[in-house]
């Protein structure tokens, strides 16, 4: 069994909500980085909960500048290290899904394309949680958020989740992986692999949010696991464009099992035609299962 590094780079005392998937995700991710490192962070939950001046939860050098430039700032740090002849220190860029798949996409694309030696970690809680649960490009189909509410004319979010992993892979990024906090060792190992690789790498960690999704704090891990077991969050890794590892699913669960536990989907079980939407979500899961050959 892999022994986790004892050193904590993201320490307790932060101000995350009880049951926060992101806080766990960040802690695990940092356990994966085994060398000296410098981290950037986009505006969002992680920055707000971990750095209320003059406090800090970071044991490594860390910088936040803006919502949309975590990748670009990280690229600048990497260039500075290179200029100074430091080939050892690792650069980690972090952002939530809004900062990554929406507003920060241009800078992320530039960082990928120029081949900076930066590990980008996206903590995906599927909405703009810190500003009050608004829809992002990573919000799944039919989810209710404060800007995609269900109503007489609406079944919640109208779009399907943007596939940032495919976008990263299309840039020729050497290491691209999805992970889930339901599988902690996998998170640590993937970040370790990503950070050890020369050149850009991308890890997107699914981090359920009890506040935004509407479930009990104690259920964070169960919800995370259900996303994987229903095939709504395929867990896999790509190296040089080839899938080299997939978490297979034994007895794939119907998506209802995942949806019914969250307030953001509860309208689907009450509204007329909600069933139709659930079928569409099931179709997404089925397609994922087929694409990534998830079924054992």
């Amino acid at each position, binding site marked *: 069994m892999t022994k986790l590094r004892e050193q904590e780079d993201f320490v307790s005392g932060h101000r995350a909500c009880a049951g926060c998937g992101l806080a766990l995700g960040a802690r695990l991710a940092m356990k994966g980085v085994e060398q*000296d490192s410098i981290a950037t962070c986009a505006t969002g939950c992680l920055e707000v909960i971990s750095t*209320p001046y003059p406090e800090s939860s970071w044991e490594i050098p860390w*910088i936040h500048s803006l919502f949309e430039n975590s990748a670009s700032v990280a690229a600048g740090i990497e260039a*500075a290290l290179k200029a100074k002849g430091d080939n050892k220190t690792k650069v980690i860029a972090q952002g939530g899904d809004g900062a990554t798949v929406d507003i920060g996409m241009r*800078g992320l694309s530039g960082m990928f394309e120029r081949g900076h030696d930066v590990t980008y970690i996206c903590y995906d809680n599927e909405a703009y949680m810190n500003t009050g649960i608004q829809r992002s490009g990573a919000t799944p189909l039919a989810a209710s958020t404060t800007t995609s509410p269900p109503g007489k004319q609406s079944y919640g979010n109208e779009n399907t989740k943007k596939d940032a992993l495919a976008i990263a892979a299309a840039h020729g990024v050497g290491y691209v992986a999805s992970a889930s906090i339901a599988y902690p060792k996998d998170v640590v190992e993937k970040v370790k692999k990503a950070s050890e690789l020369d050149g850009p790498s991308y890890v997107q960690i699914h981090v359920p949010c009890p506040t935004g999704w509407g479930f009990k704090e104690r259920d964070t891990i169960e919800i995370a696991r259900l996303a994987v077991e229903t095939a709504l969050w395929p867990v896999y890794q790509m190296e040089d464009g080839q899938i080299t590892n997939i978490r297979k699913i034994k007895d794939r669960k119907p998506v209802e099992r995942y949806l019914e536990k969250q307030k953001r989907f509860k309208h689907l079980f009450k509204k007329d035609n909600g069933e139709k939407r659930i079928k569409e979500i099931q179709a997404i899961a089925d397609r994922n299962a087929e694409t990534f050959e998830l079924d054992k």
Partner: protein
Amino acid sequence: MVERRVMEGSHAVAHAVRLCAPDVVSAYPITPQTHIVEKISQFVADGDLKSEYMRVESEFSAMSASVGSSAAGARTFTATASQGLMLMSEVLYNASGLRLPIVMSVANRAMGAPINIWNDHSDSMGVRDAGWIQLYAEDNQEALDMTIQAYKIAENQDVMLPAMVCMDGFILTHTYEPVSIPKKEEVQEFLPEFDPEVKLDPQNPVTLGTVGFPSDYMEIRHEQYQAMENARDIMPDIFKEFEEKFGRKQHSLIEEYKTEDAEIIIVSLGSIMGTIKEAVDELREDGKQVGAIKIKAFRPFPDQELRDALQNTKAVAVLDKNITLGKKGALYTEMKDTLYQAETQPQMTNYIIGLGGRDIPRQSIKNIVKQTKENLNSPQTREVRFVDLKEEK
């Protein structure tokens, strides 16, 4: 021997950058700034400058990468203009708030719409409140000198603020003039290696860019205000040191030209000062008591220097290559604030000139002086005048 060569303003700045030897240059091309970063990339390609050169995908990332680089303790350079400056404007505030001494050339260019690539100062005036030191060059030599001085000011431990060196697009960037290029060793003596007290360093971890709650935000902003005041205090010393080392007269935050007995003083900044000085010379030959003041530093603004220089003059003509819609020219409104504290207050008129690259002949300056003199005898006068508007002909 100091090397003296004829070159365009962009290349003069590129040479300054080569001499300052930043660790990282991060840039995106935009007219009329492009020649600066092209020349720098050539220096890097030829091994004459050993910098990490980041060919970023936008000005937004150019400034963002500069933030990362500078925070990691690397001397950093970038350059931009106009729309590019606006695209990076959000990051400009972070660069200054994080107290990062990045130096940036701004090849001043008008703002759209309508799209216009020619010179005025709408761009840099639009970001005057971003917490950056702002220097304005009159000619190519000054653009080179100011770039070197900007690093020295910005990197001072009591300052630690970013600085922009503004130079008029095309008028300077694309115009050839003789320029003295200092020796590398001399610049290294003047500008030692950048070694900030606070930086991103795994051996001594710090957290930068935290959340500033209402309980602390004002104190942090006040420190930043104080840093700009510190810059005001140290700049004359740095100018003096530069003058002693490189033998070129540097003046203070302003440059006075034939102001001693002047009844009318023209105040402006940038390349137009050359034309103004010539017009002043010609008017002086005709016996007119006219002088000029060049604003070298717009941030920090030279309040006391201007009050001292203008205390005996009757009228001031402020020439703005920008217009704050709904108010007046930016320089003019700041001058008025400055002179409100003065013992005597000269009459002031604001002339808006040269927007979007409109030519400013010497005769226009002479007309301005004539009009300013006429205003002295007229109690009712327009405070803002657009110079050489077609319908006014």
